């Protein structure tokens, strides 16, 4: 009697173990949410605006995949996806953080791009004003008119770059627009320095 009870107990325990092992499947829902969230981060241009946060999310997803592969290599009865689920949740959070960071950085870049365009436009207007002042000078040295024409040409060339910034903003390439604006402002500043120097030299 006691022997039969022991056998029955062993069989019951084995069956429970098999059933338990049979229930240990990859946490598909968590993985799906993780992948969807990563897709959202990429769609939010996290690669451009929050590359570090995106890299962290991708590393977290790589850890999930490593853990999945490690479990897949195990005997079916000993697999456990508890850690996988935890890692997937962390990766999903990292992807969500990347999305949020990208949105914030994009918004800031958009504002920076607009400011950059404004700064460049103002710098160009200032240079134009200095040229106009110089052109109106009564006493100018010999060869000044030719120099002034060259300076006007330089301003023409720089003015011709403004549409590139506007186009970058229209195409929502805000970081590119910021870079273009900074470069243009730098060039205009050099021109303005030359103009101011000329103005001081001829006491205009």
């Amino acid at each position, binding site marked *: 009697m006691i022997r039969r009870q022991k056998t029955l107990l062993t069989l019951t325990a084995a069956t429970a173990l098999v059933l338990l092992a049979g229930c240990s499947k990859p946490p598909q829902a968590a993985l799906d949410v993780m992948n969807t969230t990563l897709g959202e981060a990429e769609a939010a241009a996290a690669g451009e605006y929050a590359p570090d946060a995106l890299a962290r999310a991708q590393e977290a997803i790589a850890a999930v995949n490593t853990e999945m592969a490690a479990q897949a290599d195990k005997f079916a009865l000993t697999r456990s996806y508890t850690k996988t689920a935890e890692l997937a949740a962390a990766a999903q959070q990292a992807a969500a953080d990347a999305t949020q960071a990208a949105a914030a950085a994009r918004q800031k870049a958009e504002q920076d791009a607009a400011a950059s365009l404004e700064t460049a436009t103002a710098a160009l207007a200032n240079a134009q004003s200095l040229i106009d002042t110089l052109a109106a000078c009564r006493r100018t040295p010999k060869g000044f*008119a030719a120099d002034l024409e060259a300076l006007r040409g*330089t301003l023409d060339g720089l003015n011709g770059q403004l549409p590139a910034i506007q186009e970058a903003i229209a195409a929502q390439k805000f970081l590119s627009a910021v*870079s273009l604006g900074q470069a243009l402002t730098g060039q205009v500043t050099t021109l303005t320095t030359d103009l101011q120097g000329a103005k001081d030299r001829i006491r205009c």
Partner: protein
Amino acid sequence: MLAAGACHEAPAAVSVSQNQAAVATAAVLTEPPNDEPRNDAATVIPGSAAIPAIPAIPALPEPSALDLWSIELMGAAGDLGRARGELATPGLGRQEAAWIARSAFLLEMARRVAAAGDLEEATRQATLARAEVGRVHERWLGLHSRFSDPEQLRLWDRWVDDTFSEPSSGTVLVIDKVNRRLDVYRAGRRWQSMPVELGSSGLERKLHIGDRATPEGRYRVVERRSGGRTRYHKALLLNYPNSEDVARFRAFARHSKRRFAGPGGMIEIHGGGGQGRDWTDGCVALADQHMDRLFELVEAGTPVTIVGTYSR
């Protein structure tokens, strides 16, 4: 008075420089086919001593993206420096300065892109910068090659000499295009010099209507204009085109794919100058005060010889 053709046309298009990247390509030495004798030790020609074998030169590796960027960056910086120097020479001005500014901007952007790690895009932008600034050099070459040609210089000197041997009232005008100068001669001696401005393509020799070039040749004043008869203060109308100009135009028109109405006309020496740049449609412009002085010295029939430059 405007010369034939609009005075405010857009500047003539200049072909974009084909100045491409000077890319160092690897020299690949090909091995001879297996069935040919190899020159491993020495080649012996009958009746001669053995020629030592030439050691094989190892193939150079393909240039890296960093190599290409460095080459293009240095090239663009050098081209920009050259163009800035060329800009100071007569005949180049506002348009060329604009090209230089655009090129400098492109190069700055290329540097930024390189700093961000995209050397391929940086190299592409530097190539664009070189192409832009290459237009300045092309313009400079186009303007100056004629002015150092000994044959051309002799021809211009001869025109000037012939002008002085002609019977005239004593006043002769010689316009030196390169030096942007109008010399007034009286009794064979230079009496006054006045700064002038030319057509916006003034250093080129006028060929056809609308080319904005200033003609070169021997002409005469055919009419003095003042008051309401000119837009530019006072004017001296020349007898352009002369028979040589017409012949040159006809020869050009025969071989040109485009059709032009003629060699142009209404070339004047007029006021409205002093702008510090070449801006007319081919006429020669003086500041109004200089025009006033010149107007008093010149009458219909006064010889006017326009040359690239001259040595008298």
